[in-house]
Structure formats: C-alpha cells, structure tokens
C-alpha cells in the first residue's frame, strides 16, 4: 500500500483513467448495464415483487424494460428534480400521494379512458393522469394475548378512550398513516382530525417509524393494538408462519376512516419518447394475470373486477370502506403540520 502511495501522481492518473473508463460504461457492465432502447420504469415498488412481472411483460410484448428501483418518495423527488430531462417513461408508485404530486407538477401524461375504466372510479385519478393497480386496507392489528377480538374497537375514534392508554402503536411519519389522517380530515373535518391526534397523544400513543416496526411491537406485546396496512401481516405470516406471528387483524366496519383503502398506481411521464410502450406497460399491470399476481404475491387487493383475493383475505367488496375520493388525499402538507403540532413526529 505504501509503495503505491509513493507514486502519487501515477495513482492520481490511475484514478482519472479508471473514472474515464467507467464513463465509457465498464462500471455498469458489472451489473448488466443499461440498454438504450429499453423502456425505463422508475419503481417505488420492490424489486422482489415487480421483477417477475416485468419479465413476463417483456416476454409477452417483446419490449425491453430497464427498471430503477427506489423509495417511492425519493423517486418522486428525483423525477421532480429531473424535470423534462428525465430518462424515465413510467412511474410505478407505492402510494397515490406521490402520483398526485407529480400530476400537480404537470409531469404526467393523461391515460386513455379504455385503461382508466378498467378500475372503479374510486381508485384512479380524476384527471386521468394515473390509475391504481392494487389496493391496501388500513386495519387494526392486535395481540391476541392482550385483547380478545371482541374488545378491539370498531372505530379509531374509540382509541382515545383511557382504556387504551399507552397501549396503541402508530407510525405517524409513514405515508399510509398520513393518508389515513388526511381521510379523517376529508370525512370528519379538520377539527375532528386535530382533536383525534391530540387526544391520541394525550392517551400515550406509542410511535414507530414504520408499519413493520409497529406490527413487531404488537407481536412482542409492547403495544396491544397497532394501526397498519393489512398486507404487512400477511407478508409476515408468509415469511414466518401464522403460528409465529403473534398478532391478528381487524378490518373496521361502518365506513370508519380506519378502514381506508388506498392504492399503488402507475403513470406515464410527459415527454416520454416511448409513450406507446409506456401505456402498454400500464395496461399490462391491469390484466387479469398481473392483478392475480398482486393478490397472490403481496396479498393486496386486485382492483380489476373478477380477479379474486387470496383465500383468507376478506374480498374488497365486503369491506365497509369509507366513501372517499382518493384525489382528495393530496393535501398532505396540512396533515403533516397537524401531526407535527400534535407532537407525534
């Protein structure tokens, strides 16, 4: 190492050469490289989930796809910084809010009606800029050693009862929790939402960074109840076996905000020079095949009529989902201020 350092100028020159070599693409080759002609998809959804589906799409259509995986919010921030120079053709998002933000920035192309109409109006953008590909329901996870199913409240508004003091877990900085609070605001008004948050805080609600940690806390008995998305439980059961996951789920009745169903969705970026292929990709995600795949792999709700859910998941049309337009959930900033002011983040 020392003798190498003795030759400083040559190592600097070496660095320059290596970097230059990397420019010409040798670094990318290590991992397969990027095909210039490929359709570029920015995916906020996980590779483990998306990759097999993409491979099927490539096989069926002959269109080559190059996928950039990342965090939904980070990719949205990246798309906004890239602006019209973005290499991306498609954005496949984990949540509706990020799609809404890109639509507001004018970055999304309107999708054809034939495509939009395949999913219920509740699960797509009003202005036709994005369409939902699968749904996830908010639920209460409970620890069966600490509470019987009958004891678990029917409404999130019961969680402010002293009975649950210090026994409830939430992930206040999580996108799905924020969408749920926005739903309370839309359904019951800002004052009700603010009061609920403040009362929850006063009632000693415990906060976690994400749904997984909240569910873990329920399993370990750190809290008795946790507000999460339904599929985290199903994924853990698939990973570890139902007997090892010491938690059960309750889907709330009566159109309670705690039963909100939100979506993952897809959009085509404005200025894409492969807009046709991009639309075919979006179409593909709504085929019965792909919808079945979501149901089986992520235990989410398929949104296209006629595709069944996995065996033990209550069907979407039996859920008592609150009547809400998901496009109205785009006022995230006020929600965040409210959550912050309540002292939860």
């Amino acid at each position, binding site marked *: *190492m*020392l003798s190498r*350092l*003795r*030759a*400083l*100028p040559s*190592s*600097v020159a*070496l*660095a320059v050469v290596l970097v230059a070599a*990397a*420019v010409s*693409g040798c*670094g*990318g080759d*290590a*991992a*397969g*490289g*990027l095909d210039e002609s490929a359709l570029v998809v920015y995916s906020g959804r996980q*590779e*483990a*989930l998306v990759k097999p589906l993409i491979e099927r799409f490539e096989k069926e259509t002959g269109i080559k796809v*190059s*996928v*950039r*995986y*990342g*965090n939904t*919010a*980070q990719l*949205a*921030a*990246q798309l*906004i*910084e*890239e*602006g019209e*120079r*973005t*290499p991306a053709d498609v954005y496949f998002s984990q949540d509706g809010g990020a799609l809404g933000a*890109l639509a507001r920035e004018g970055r999304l192309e309107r999708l054809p009606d034939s495509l939009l109409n395949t999913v219920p109006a509740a699960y797509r953008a009003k202005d036709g800029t994005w369409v939902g590909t699968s749904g996830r329901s908010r639920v209460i996870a409970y620890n069966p050693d600490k509470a019987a199913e009958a004891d678990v409240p029917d409404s999130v508004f019961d969680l402010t009862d002293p009975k649950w003091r210090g026994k409830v877990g939430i992930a206040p*900085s999580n*996108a799905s929790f*924020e969408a749920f609070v926005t739903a309370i605001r839309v359904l019951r008004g800002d004052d009700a939402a603010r009061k609920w948050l403040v009362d929850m805080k006063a009632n000693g609600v415990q906060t976690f*960074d994400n749904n*997984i*940690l909240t569910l*873990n806390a329920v399993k370990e008995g750190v809290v008795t109840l946790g507000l999460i998305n339904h599929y985290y439980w199903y*994924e*853990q059961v698939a*990973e*570890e*076996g139902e007997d*090892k996951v010491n938690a059960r789920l309750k889907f709330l009745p009566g159109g309670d905000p705690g039963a909100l169903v939100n979506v993952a969705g897809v959009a085509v970026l404005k200025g894409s020079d492969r807009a046709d292929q991009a639309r075919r990709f979006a179409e593909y995600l709504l085929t019965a095949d792909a919808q079945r795949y979501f149901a089986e792999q992520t235990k989410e709700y398929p949104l296209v009529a006629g595709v069944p859910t996995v065996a033990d998941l209550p069907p979407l049309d039996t859920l008592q989902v609150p009547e809400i337009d998901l496009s109205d959930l785009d006022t*995230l*900033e006020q929600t965040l201020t409210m959550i*912050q002011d309540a002292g939860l*983040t």
Partner: protein
Amino acid sequence: MSAAALPVSGDECYGTHCHSRVRQHIPSVLVVPAAVAAAVALLPLIYLAVRASEDGLGTVADVLLRERTAALVLRSLALAGTVTAICLVVGVSLAGLVTRTRLPARPVWAVLVALPLAVPSYVAAFTWLSLFPRFGGFLGATLVLSLVSYPYVYLPVVAALSRIDPAHEEVARALGRGPLRTFLSVTARQVRPAAAGGALLVALYVLSDFGAVAMLRYDVFTRVIYTSYRSSFDPTPAAILSCVLVAITVLILWGEIRTRGSRAYARLGAGAARQHRPAPLRGWTAAALAWCALVVGLAVGVPLVAIGYWLARGSSAGIDVGELASAAVSTLAVSALGALLTVALALPVGALAGRYRGRRVRLLEQAAYAGHALPGVVVALSLVFLSVRYARPIYQEVPVLVLAYAVLFLPAAVAAVRASVAQCPPALEDVARSLGRTPGGVLRSITVPLAGPGIAAGAVLVFLTCMKELPATLLLRPTGMETLATRLWSNTEVGAYAGAAPFAVALLLLAALPTALLGHRWRTRHE
C-alpha cells in the same frame, strides 16, 4: 538527536528557518488541485442556493422561524455532542490498547474493533430494535450512533500512534512520569490532530444521519428535511433547512480550528522513528480484554446475532449467488473508485491544512467540509439536479455516483491526510527542497511516504463508508446496478429479513478484508 514536541505558536515561530516556512509562498502545485477539490465539495451548495432562493426571502424566514426548527437544531447538537464525546473515549482507549499494550491477540483485536465501520447505521438500529423492541429515544440513538461511528476516531488515532517517535514518551518516562500520565500528557497530545479530525467527522456524521434516528424514534433536524421533501415534494423548504445544517457545519469547523491550537506535532530530530515497545498490562489484562470485548460485542455481535436470527427464522432465505456476486462486485468497484477519487482530491487539501497556515488554507479546508453535515439524500438530489442539466451523458452513470461519494466523504480523507502530514517533520521537506527537489517531488518522495499509513487509513475509511452508503447510491447508481447496500435496503423494506441477511453478511465480510489488511500492515511494522 531527537526532541519532544516543541510548541510552535501561530505565526511567530520556532527559529528563523521555521519563521520563513510560515511566510513561505504556498506552492501552487498544492493550491490549484486543492481549489478543485474544494469546488467539488461545494457543488451541493450551488443547488441549495438555487432552490432555497426560489420562493423569495419570505419563504426563507417562514421556514427558519418555525419554533420546531430551533428546538430540533438543539436536539441534533446535543446528540452530536454526546456521541462525539463517547466516540473519543472509546476510539482513543481502544487505539491505545491495540497499539501500545501487550493486549493478548492484539492483531485480532486491531481488526475486530475497526469492524463496526462496516455496519450501516440503519442496519445497526434495526437489529437492535429487532432484538429489543422497546429500544430507542435519546439513549438508544446515542448508543447505536456511538457504536457505528467510533472507528472514525479509532482508525486515524491508530495510524497516528504507530507513527509517533517513542523518544518523546521515553523522555517523559525517564523524567519520572508513570505510563498512564505519559500517555495522557505526551502521547495524547501527539494524537490530538488525528483524534480531533475523527471527532469532527463523528459530529458531522451524526448531524447528517437519518436512518438510525428515524428508526430509533429520536426526532432530530434531518428528520424535518425529509418530512419536508415528502410532504410537499417541494424542494424549496428542504433546501432552506439544509442551509441551516451547512451553517452549523461552518460553526463547528470554526470551533474545531480554534481548539486545534498551534503546536507542531512532528518529530524534529534526524533519522527515522524507532518502533515502540508495547507496555505490559499486568493486572489490567482482564479489564482491557473485557472493554474490547464489550465494544465489539455490542457493535458487531448484536447485529450478527440478529442477522443469524433472521436466517434461522425466515423462509425468504434462498440465496441467489449470482445476485449476491454481482452486488458484491459492483459494491467493490464503485467503492474503490470512490475511495480513489476521494483520496486523490483530499491529498492537496490535507497536505495544505497539515503544513501551512493562513486564511486561504483554512478556507480551502473548510470548503472541503462544508457539505458534510448534509444528509445523503440532499447531496444526491443536488447532483441529480446538476448532472441532469449539465452532464446529461453521465447522469445515472458510475462517474456521477463516484463524484457523489467524493463530495460526501472528502472530509474523512482530508482529516486523515491532514493529521498524517502534520506528523511529518517539515525539516525533511526543507532539506529535500534545498537539495533541489521540486515541491511536487518533495510531496512524492517525502511527505506522502511518511504520511502513508495515515493516508491509507483514510482511504480504507472512505472505501468502507462508500460500501454502506445508501441514499446517494439509490438515486445516482446506473439503472440496473445494485450494490450490497441497496439489496439490503430493498429486502428489509419488504420485511424479508432473511433475504437481507446474506447481503448483510457479505457487506461485513468484504469490509473485514481492508480492515484486516490495515491491521496486518500495522502488526508487521511493529514486530
């Protein structure tokens, strides 16, 4: 003839020769490349300035005057201060034990105690949480961040200790000081530049960390920046808040430079330093071993136990060897390039800062640090912004990613170079100059070889830090390229912890190699 460290105060100096050195013209062979390095480090600030000023001063005031902003700055500073203090104690004590005592199995410990560097803070936080669900808050964040960042102090201090002339200590001992007092009064003073450089890195790292504090539910300033991005997808408030971090960095740098004092650290005698004779620990052996074992156990043992637990429990454990290998190759390749570029940029800045004083030098050095407290995602977005506009052909290619690593980790390399250069005797350089060497030739034949171990430690530090870097890698990597860190991340995001385990293990193993190399090099030098 060899003398103990002689105090050289500020610009008035020791002897006429030294006097002329301070006034000496600073060679442009150093200044020009140092200016280039500083410019690279300042790239994110261009972006921040553009974004922060977009909505006018009203918005700036609005964002800054929120009462939460001030409260969270204070919380961040408290966390950074506490973690830095702990890292100094842990890092210096471990470095002292493995370089200066007859600790049983010293070479093994030398490697083991550096290993926590391979553990990304988000993995450490997560593993602690998975074993102890109630873990968190200020104490939790302090513990986890201290465990993952004390090597920033340990590594440079080891390098510095292995370079100190034993004569200093022998003189102190001969004059009747005990071993501990000698260590505190003579040795500790000699390693001060290295330790201070490391402490600075720790403080700035803690300010910029997001993953660990988020998981451990301790609300600090970086969290506001993230929340701001996510809520509105509007870059302006986030940019304004990031400027606060830059301001804090400048303040901390100013403080560090003031405490750095004005002493010469090099041995002034002729010839080369002899080797050290390690001190016997006698009755303290058990306590010393227990201390090392405790630190390594908490920092490396706990994550390993948790990873083993994931492997044993989960069903997503099918290892895709091809995927693992390609992630490992990409990780090594981009990290090596990152370390190379970073050290190349750091050499002129560190050499200047270690050797020369004055306003210009200080500015260049501070510029290299300016962005270090910025969260990775801010640096990454700034490079997205700049490269997509002005370097479109290399956007989402390896060069921009490597450049991001250099921006992020330049300070780590600068600190290492500066501390090692400060320990080289300037007299040797003067002699070389008087014998007709060019400034570049002096750098090549005197300064760099003498400062070698410290610079190598810096390179290893940067290499390891690149390996576990996540936010910038996610945003800037070539589409389709995955590193061990991104694989680890994508698996833990879906809760497939067993699937994440092989990548975590691979990251640890690969990181162990360079640390072992460093430990081995040090050992052969001393036996």
